[in-house]
């Protein structure tokens, strides 16, 4: 064998260990880079070639040809990636959902002294003060002021909620933009990775970048992805292709014709709606399309209930100036409820008296103040609903409709459940809140009771001179006009329910956000455990590479010495 082979082996070692130091250095440099996967140099011994094996030197086969770097591999567990991206989706969804909900809670700021509930209390009190002193101008002025405080607070809550909903709509457009920038970058990375990896090398850093973008996309919306044999990754958003090879399909936020003033996200090319069950987009849409409209609707129901019930009493009363027929409130809902300007300008027009020419009569004002105690002040607004005294079919009358306080305010729909009835909230497809097991009634009547577990949620009393079969009950109750029930509340109870339901929603959204965050943190740690950089480890690797490099250099020195001996000191016999 020739010494130059040893020299060559040593040079290979120098090269390989220098590369190891380079890689450690690259890892250390990226210790804090998000999405970076640590890289490892794979070394393998270089075996003898066939030519060598054919050589006559029998010792040659026993020594190798040194080392070569076979690959620079990034440490990555694609299964963990898959799991982490799922949790990123739920994390994005719940954090995007819980944040605006918490903001909505601040709009109401209750229980507190200056929330809507406090103002409602002051409003009712002011009516009693007018009852106490109907002839007193200060009491009337104070009532006008309390009313204006209440109405402007309701208007502001409405405006704040509407503004927050508009902000959420802007978020929808922003998310569309983020999806586009991520998907177009993935498309271009697909192209680059394909090019780089054509010759079998790994495009580690490009792949890291692409994985980071997939992480981001998973946080934004529900995606599926598969890596193709040409090393490009195909990404689906919902069931629609988002990225194939080096082509990204742009999404766009366009006005939603079914929801005034709101945008929806579509695929720009074919107009398909973007569907997603997770990700920030889902959270934002849930808040924008479910929670906020419901809150605004409840606020409007409260305002409309105050307007209609108080106006109808007030219009029948008489002011100090004998004026009558004046509405107390103007407006139709929380967006425009206001004290009638005529009354605001002249509080003596507050109709405290129940007849003309009675300055000391606070009877009508007392009737208004009594509305505070009326359980039926705030009723639902759907046209068709089962009311007390309603005839179900000939001979059967609903004599009582009771909805328990456990149910939140609103309209409840009865739907068939086999031979029985389900009670659903909000719509005929809404969540089931109770089930009534129907049984034949004896002559005289009986009751149909909706149960949730062991709790009674609603009861319908029926009076009839005849017997009433279970099948007839189902038919009658599902008949149009009989198939809905409405909760009734006093204004205070309705508002308290609004606040506590919102509080429970915020509480559960925060809980979900926290738990998905926790799960995500755990998976991130597992990913980090595989892919993250540990400085001590890199320093050790670098140290080892440095030692190996030094030793290889020593090999060169040794061979150099040997060559020196051979060249300069041989053939000197007798000299």
């Amino acid at each position, binding site marked *: 064998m020739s010494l130059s082979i040893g020299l060559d082996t040593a040079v290979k070692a120098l090269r390989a260990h220098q590369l190891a130091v380079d890689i450690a250095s690259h890892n250390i440099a990226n210790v804090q880079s998000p999405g970076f996967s640590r890289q490892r140099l794979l070394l393998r011994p270089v075996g003898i070639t066939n030519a060598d094996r054919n050589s006559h030197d029998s010792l040659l086969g026993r020594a190798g040809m040194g080392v070569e770097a076979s690959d620079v591999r990034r440490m990555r567990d694609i299964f963990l990636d898959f799991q982490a991206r799922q949790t990123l989706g739920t994390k994005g969804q719940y954090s995007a959902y819980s944040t605006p909900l918490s903001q909505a809670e601040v709009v109401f700021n*209750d*229980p507190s002294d200056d929330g809507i509930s406090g103002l409602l209390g002051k409003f009712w009190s002011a009516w009693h003060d007018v009852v106490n002193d109907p002839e007193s101008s200060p009491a009337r002025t104070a009532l006008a002021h309390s009313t204006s405080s209440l109405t402007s607070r309701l208007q502001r809550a409405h405006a704040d909620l509407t503004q927050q909903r508009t902000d959420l709509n802007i978020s929808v457009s922003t998310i569309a933009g983020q999806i586009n920038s991520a998907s177009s970058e993935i498309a271009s990375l697909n192209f680059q990775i394909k090019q780089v990896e054509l010759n079998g090398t790994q495009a580690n850093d490009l792949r890291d970048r692409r994985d980071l973008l997939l992480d981001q996309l998973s946080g934004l919306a529900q995606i599926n992805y598969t890596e193709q044999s040409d090393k490009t990754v195909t990404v689906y958003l919902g069931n629609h292709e988002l990225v194939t090879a080096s082509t990204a399909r742009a999404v766009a936020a366009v006005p939603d014709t079914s929801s005034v003033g709101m945008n929806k996200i579509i695929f720009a090319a074919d107009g398909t709606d973007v569907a997603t069950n997770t990700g920030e987009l889902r959270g934002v849409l849930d808040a924008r399309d479910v929670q906020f409209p419901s809150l605004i609707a409840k606020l409007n129901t409260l305002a409309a209930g105050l307007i209609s019930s108080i106006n109808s009493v007030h219009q029948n009363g008489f002011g100090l100036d004998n004026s009558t027929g004046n509405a107390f409130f103007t407006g139709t809902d929380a967006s425009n409820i206001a004290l009638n300007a005529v009354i605001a300008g002249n509080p003596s027009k507050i109709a405290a008296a129940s007849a003309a020419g009675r300055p000391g009569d606070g009877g009508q004002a007392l009737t208004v103040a009594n509305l505070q105690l009326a359980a039926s002040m705030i009723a639902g607004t759907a046209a068709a609903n089962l009311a007390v005294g309603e005839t179900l079919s000939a001979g059967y009358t609903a004599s009582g409709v009771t909805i328990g306080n456990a149910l939140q305010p609103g309209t409840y729909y009865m739907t068939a459940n086999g031979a029985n009835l389900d009670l659903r909230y909000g719509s005929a497809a809404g969540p089931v809140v109770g089930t009534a097991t129907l049984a034949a009634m004896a002559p005289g009547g009986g009751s149909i009771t909706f149960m949730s577990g062991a709790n009674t949620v609603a009861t319908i009393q029926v009076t009839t001179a005849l017997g009433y079969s279970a099948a007839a009950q189902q038919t009658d109750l599902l008949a149009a006009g009989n198939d809905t029930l409405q909760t009734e509340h006093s204004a205070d109870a309705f508002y308290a329910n609004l606040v506590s339901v919102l509080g429970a929603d915020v509480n559960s959204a925060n809980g979900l956000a926290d738990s998905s965050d926790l799960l995500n943190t755990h998976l991130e740690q597992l990913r980090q455990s595989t892919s993250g950089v540990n400085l001590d480890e890199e320093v050790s690797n670098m140290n080892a590479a440095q030692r190996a490099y030094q030793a290889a250099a020593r090999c060169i020195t040794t061979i150099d010495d040997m060559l020196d001996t051979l060249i300069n000191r041989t053939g000197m016999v007798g000299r």
Partner: protein
Amino acid sequence: MRITEQSRLSNQVDYLNAASERMDRIQQQLATGKRLQRASDDPSGAALSLSHRKSIAFEAQMRRNMENGIAFLNVTESALGGATELLQRARELSVQGANGTNGPSERKSIAAEVEQIIQSMAQVGNSNFGGTYIFSGFQTQTAAFQVTGTPPTAITYQGDAGLRMHRVSAQDTVPSNVVGSGVFGTVFSDLIALRDNLATNGPVASTSAGIANIDSALGRVLQARADVGARINRFEASRTRSEDTDTSLQDLRANIEDIDLGETIVKMTAQQNALQAALGAIGRNSNNSLLNFLR
């Protein structure tokens, strides 16, 4: 499990955030004295607290209503007290006048005193409370009794039969006024008849017949005073009940909303220790590196 620089850092940040968040929460609780900052802290508690707050405000208003009613009734009571004294004097005078031994001049001077009583009685009937005529029913801006002629020949009721109702509880309303026409009845015409009979030296029999009228007037006034007294008692009793209710509602509200100061301070100390321990652990741990041992 491999611990990497990024996961160590993010863990440290997470620990610190969690500890600071708990600290912040306790500080907020201590600063505001409230356990319930938002409805989401305790949704069902929030519903209860709102209901208690509503009831507390309602009860406070009920007490205002009662105080207003009591003030009105106290004025009524003292007016009726005056009316009682006047009627008692009128009775004495009519008994005197009915005595046949009096001559025309003596009867005339009795008539003059009755005239005074009529005037005072009209003033009592027109008593007002802060500009409100208390016996006028709903016509509180109009004097209850109009005096015609000097000396008066007729005194007519100008009010109506309106009862001013005040709510004293969710179930009860109580009137705060006494209607003048009912309590005074025919007292003015009776007194005018007595005066005229005495002044004109009319038949003694008519004078003694008038005593019965004055007795029945006294009876009406005393009946009204008893009624006013009973109503004041009812207001007072309701006020006591309302104050008791208020105390227990405030307790219930405080149980839901307010912090236990001692407990919260102990918690804060514990959290402070935890935060300091976390900071200390991070400080010591982050100095550990292989680099410290290599040269």
